[in-house]
């Protein structure tokens, strides 16, 4: 069964996502979640409650890597949220994944795209650590997914909609290099806002040559056209980025991809049925 996983930057966005047909949402806990769209503990608990009442899932993004001093606070939050019905935790640190897999064996753990899994061995490594699912890099081809699927039984999650930044997920520490002065700016993986320094109007100078304007490339990834291929390759979760979206925009986005996924699921079902009939006829 494939799930549509929608972003929830607020409780209202979560409600809008569910209304528009999301099977699950992911929301962050402020202070332990990348970006500026984390919820307070109380709001997050309400979000989990909404999901539970609808019979759907809510994952909690704890994709900031805690400093040593913050680790105990994070573990307390995990304990609390696990009891409040979190459908899973999205994590960015392999040590934390292994630790929580032992401490909370019943709670599904998902390796964030920031874990940098790009190949089948990465996914197997994360599976051995105890990850229930692995988020694959934006734009991964269905053929690569199919190969990974043949080697592992974890949930494989791909992006249908994502902002592709110039630096690969899991490698960028630019924000913390450039910014100083504001405690809110810095490394995204350490819980600060990176300020998207990569998007600045840069000038490129080659050796002693003239400088010229240049931009590091950003693009919006829309993989709607690949949904059927992804289904065939064994994708189990289709993720939409966009925790910054308003509730209205979240609803509209989910509606669009719900339609796309439902059409693909219907086509996939018919094809599977056709395959079964063909197999039956050949006997």
């Amino acid at each position, binding site marked *: 069964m494939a799930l549509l996983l929608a972003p929830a930057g607020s409780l209202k966005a979560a409600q809008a996502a569910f209304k528009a047909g999301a099977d699950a949402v992911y929301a962050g806990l402020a202070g332990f979640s990348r970006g500026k769209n984390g919820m307070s503990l109380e709001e997050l608990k309400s979000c989990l409650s909404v999901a539970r009442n609808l019979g759907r899932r809510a994952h909690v993004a704890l994709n900031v*890597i*805690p*400093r*040593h001093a913050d*680790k105990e606070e994070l573990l307390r939050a995990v304990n609390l949220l696990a009891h409040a019905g979190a459908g899973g935790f999205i994590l960015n*640190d*392999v*040590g*934390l994944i*292994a*630790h929580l897999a032992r401490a909370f064996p019943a709670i599904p753990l998902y390796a964030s795209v*920031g*874990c*940098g*899994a*790009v*190949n*089948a*061995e*990465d*996914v*197997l*490594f*994360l599976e*051995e*650590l105890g990850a229930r699912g692995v988020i694959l890099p934006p734009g991964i081809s269905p053929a*690569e997914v199919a*190969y*990974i699927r043949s080697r592992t039984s974890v949930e494989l999650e791909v992006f249908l909609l994502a902002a*592709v930044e*110039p*630096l*690969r997920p*899991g*490698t*960028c*520490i*630019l924000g*913390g*290099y*450039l*910014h*100083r002065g504001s405690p809110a700016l*810095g*490394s995204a*993986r*350490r819980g600060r806002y990176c300020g998207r*320094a990569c998007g*600045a*109007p*840069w*000038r*490129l*100078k*080659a*050796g002693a040559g003239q*400088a010229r304007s*240049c931009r*590091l*490339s950003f693009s919006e990834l829309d993989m709607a056209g690949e949904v059927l291929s992804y289904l065939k390759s064994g994708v189990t979760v289709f993720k939409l980025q966009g925790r910054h979206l308003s509730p209205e925009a979240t609803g509209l986005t989910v509606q669009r991809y719900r339609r796309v996924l439902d059409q693909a699921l219907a086509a996939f079902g018919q094809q599977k049925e056709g395959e079964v009939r063909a197999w039956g006829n050949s006997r």
Partner: protein
Amino acid sequence: MGQLEIELNTQVSTLEEVNARDLAPYQAVYLGNPYCPKHAGNLLENHRELAEAITRLKGMGKKAYVATPAAPRTGELGGVEKLVETAARAGADAVEAHNLGVVRLVHRRFPGLPVHTGCFANVYTDLGAAKLKEYGVRRVTPNYEVSLEEIHLIREAGGLEVEILLHGKMPLGLTNSCFLLNFPDHPCPQACREDFWLTTRDWVLKITGTVVWSGKDVCMLEHLPYLLESGYRAFRLETLYEPPEYRREVGLIYREALEHMAEGRELLWPAWLEMLKNWSRHGFCNGYYFGQAGRMYINQYGEPVSI
């Protein structure tokens, strides 16, 4: 201090760079460029030359570590396995992996071959380091945005050797595709022989095809006594994409500083820093070691200064 086994190491991309004169200050060398298979002469793409490079280093009495591609896709893993097989057969002392899948692959296929993890393996916590130890990892380079305070904890709790970037440009991220391919007037692979700088406001970055680097050189010379007292023994001088003279001269300055410390001789900070400055176009920083913005420089007295 003279009796301590201190390793200064560096990295070279090609066989041509494996020569006794430029590598004289170093006890160990990482071979190959993990960031770009198209880098001209990349040892990771020519296994015969890689084996020869390992033999040469051994002949010089140095340790030979072999890099592996930083972010190989599934289709490239077969090539990585052959690369590691070549390294193991030729007597490499360890392989370096930035990719956790490669760590797993080496552990399964070449048990007993030591693994060092590079900065992009994203070791941030003692929990992560301890887990990697179970996969045959002997040495970790924590992610460069981890502070020394946290690195101490990683070393103590993780039970692994830790490598510290002592000098040179710090990789800040890997691009999704080669950035320089956007500029046809700088064709591949010659473009990587030129220096490319990105500037805006008072920010400067260096960019090679697939890596964004700090514009400033990390310089921990003044903090070397503290690092030694803290128990670190493996130090990297990052010289990828630098000319051979940089590798030799910067290495010699650090070697001299280490000798002065070992023999209790006068520490010539101003002179050494002046000499190092000759090799730095945009000044020095300390990276993230002291918990500050990575492009700042803190001197041995704990004062932020511009240098």
